[in-house]
């Protein structure tokens, strides 16, 4: 009998063309997603006069630099140049381009699944670290740098050493107001940003099965903040229901055949993981970052740690983080005033995220300004069909077009120096949202709560008072 295999084992074997003597594998790439930032890679293949090997498997999207106010002409010449470079590369190589005004445009990790470009059993590469998102569908998806993007463009393959397998098992029921974002921040806080370095994470357990596809994407997306290049969840009926009928998904008998193949994409009973972590969903509280690394996160009810009392190896980082963030040890997280809020990004810019934020905001006026950028133009249309845009605008928040926006600030949406932002994004790094910007990561519902009170707030209290 064949040895029990993990999902990683199966996906790896499916894509391995060959393995070199040194153990590095040449892998077939089923989907390659490119964006404006891929300009270095296109320049590299141009230098060598190489064509794109499989234009039919390569999809291009304007997202990182997409202005969130869709005026006819992009004002910033730097941004305009980045977009026009992608446009001309897409034309040169005959790539499907989701351009700025395409009704299906959006953040690459939102539109991949939305368009059915992402499927179970695929190997998906993109020059972006949050490519791990697509693993939520049972795909082998990982981010790569520009040289490797050029390699995939030229050969439709990638050299990669197989990572070790880490299982993160989350059982139990999440409390009200607690979401996939909190699961992610909780495990990263516990195991550190290097905790999963060199591993591919498979998320299992009843709490994972109960997550929507949107929640699963949020969780897989944040795998990279825990150090893992890959996150994955075995596909199930929820996965198939999400995908069926989407534009690039097989139809008719081909769909039935595909689902039959995909049902085998699970870790076998008794499969051995190199490491196992387990979490109790019921114990996870709404979680907020206080520092400049995603591992510097705590439940909203906690106080900011004293660098004197954190493990020695983390003391210097804690001290530097508190200085940058303008916070004091011992201060409670709850009640920390914020200057603005942001909801969006490949982490938490999907329809469910907007619904959760709107559920908190409905009927309230916000105390601080904020921007909401839906993850895609389709998400935007859906939200507007549900009247969520009205909830946001009535509350006093700005409703914008889709793109990476204030998560990374490339399009000019930035947080000003010294300003504190409650953000549904993925990185609280120094300067990530703008030079000197102070970012607190949290779920969209928690961002909504902070907008209402003007300070970090436990959304559960707002939800409870609403229920009365």
């Amino acid at each position, binding site marked *: 009998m064949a040895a029990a295999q993990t999902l990683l084992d199966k996906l790896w074997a*499916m894509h391995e*063309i060959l393995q*070199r003597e*040194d*153990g*590095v594998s*040449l892998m077939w790439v089923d989907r390659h997603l490119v964006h404006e930032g891929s300009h*270095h890679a296109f*320049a590299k293949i141009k230098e060598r006069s*190489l064509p794109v090997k499989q234009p*039919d*498997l390569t999809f291009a999207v304007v997202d990182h*630099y997409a202005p969130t106010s869709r005026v006819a002409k992009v004002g910033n010449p730097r941004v305009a140049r*980045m977009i026009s470079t992608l446009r001309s590369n897409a034309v040169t190589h005959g790539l499907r381009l989701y351009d700025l005004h395409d009704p299906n445009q959006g953040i690459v990790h939102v539109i991949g699944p939305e*368009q059915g*470009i992402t*499927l179970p*059993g695929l190997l998906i590469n993109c*020059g*972006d*670290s949050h490519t791990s998102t697509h693993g939520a569908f049972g795909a082998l998806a990982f*981010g*790569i*740098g*520009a*040289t*490797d993007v050029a*390699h995939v463009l030229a*050969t*439709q*393959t990638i*050299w990669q050493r197989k990572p070790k397998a880490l299982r993160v098992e989350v059982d139990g029921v999440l409390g009200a107001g607690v979401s996939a974002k909190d699961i992610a921040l909780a495990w990263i806080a516990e195991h550190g*940003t*290097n905790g999963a*370095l*060199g591993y591919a994470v498979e998320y299992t357990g009843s709490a994972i099965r109960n997550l929507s596809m949107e929640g699963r994407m949020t969780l897989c997306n944040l795998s990279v903040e825990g*150090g893992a*290049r890959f996150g994955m969840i075995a596909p199930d009926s929820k996965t198939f229901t999400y995908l069926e009928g989407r*534009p*690039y*998904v*097989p139809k008719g008998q*081909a769909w039935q*055949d595909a689902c039959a*193949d995909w049902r085998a994409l699970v870790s076998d009973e008794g499969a051995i993981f190199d490491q196992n972590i387990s979490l109790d969903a019921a114990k996870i509280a709404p979680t907020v970052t206080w520092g400049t*690394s995603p591992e510097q996160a705590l439940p909203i009810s906690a106080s900011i740690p004293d660098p004197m009392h954190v493990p020695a*190896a983390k003391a*210097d*980082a804690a001290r*530097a983080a508190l200085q940058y963030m303008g916070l004091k040890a011992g201060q409670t997280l709850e009640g920390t005033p914020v200057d603005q809020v942001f909801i969006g990004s490949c982490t938490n810019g999907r329809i469910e995220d907007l619904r959760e934020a709107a559920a908190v905001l409905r009927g309230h006026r916000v105390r601080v300004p904020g921007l909401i950028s839906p993850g895609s133009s389709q998400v935007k249309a859906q939200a507007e069909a549900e009247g969520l845009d009205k909830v946001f605008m009535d509350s006093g928040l700005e409703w914008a077009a889709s793109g990476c926006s204030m998560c*990374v*600030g*490339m399009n000019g949406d930035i947080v000003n120096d010294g300003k504190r932002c409650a953000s549904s994004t993925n*990185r609280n*790094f*120094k*300067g*990530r949202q703008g*030079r*000197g910007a102070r970012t607190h990561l949290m779920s969209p519902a928690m961002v909504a709560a902070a907008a209402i009170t003007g300070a970090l707030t436990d959304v559960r209290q707002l939800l409870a008072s609403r229920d009365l």
Partner: protein
Amino acid sequence: MVGWCLHKGLAVSLPQENVDTDQLIPARYMSIPRADGYGPYLFYDMRRDENGTLRKNFVLNRHKNTTVIVARRGFGSGSSREAAVYALMDAGIRAVVAPSFGDIFAANCINNGLLPACLDEKSCAALENALANDAKNIRIDIKARVISLSNIKTGFSLDDSWATKLINGWDDIDLTMDHAAEIAAYKDARSRNAPWAWPVVAD
């Protein structure tokens, strides 16, 4: 890419955990063509104050001929931006020594001839101490996996396949093209075994 296996240069210490790629190069400088050079943008916000003036006390401003950075765990974590490696290379850095590196960053280093030398926490701390007050000459031997600085001589770890690539300055595209027949055979088999792996024509 030019291969190398021995480097003699000047090392400084940057004693900070998780120096992410956003700090290595802020996103706002990533639209610049590579030919223009990324060196001036390395550590831009750490290196310069809000007016763009160089901070006198920042270590790379004090030692302009630095070629090796001794850092702490999690160096290069975060964004996959290869621009972080371009900035290091264009600023003259040839190696970074740290207890751990961001996964994608390390791969990007290898693709550009920059050495991510992985060292245990204790040895790294010893180097950091030796560099506490000054920059010092350093010698790195990739083949032997040895770093020498003052009276410290320590091994480091580096994946064998990465060492080979750094030493030979190999370009993966050329290596891969040699496997064209195997790739074609795989593609053929995949289209038969997993027809769903090809996108249906949507538009």
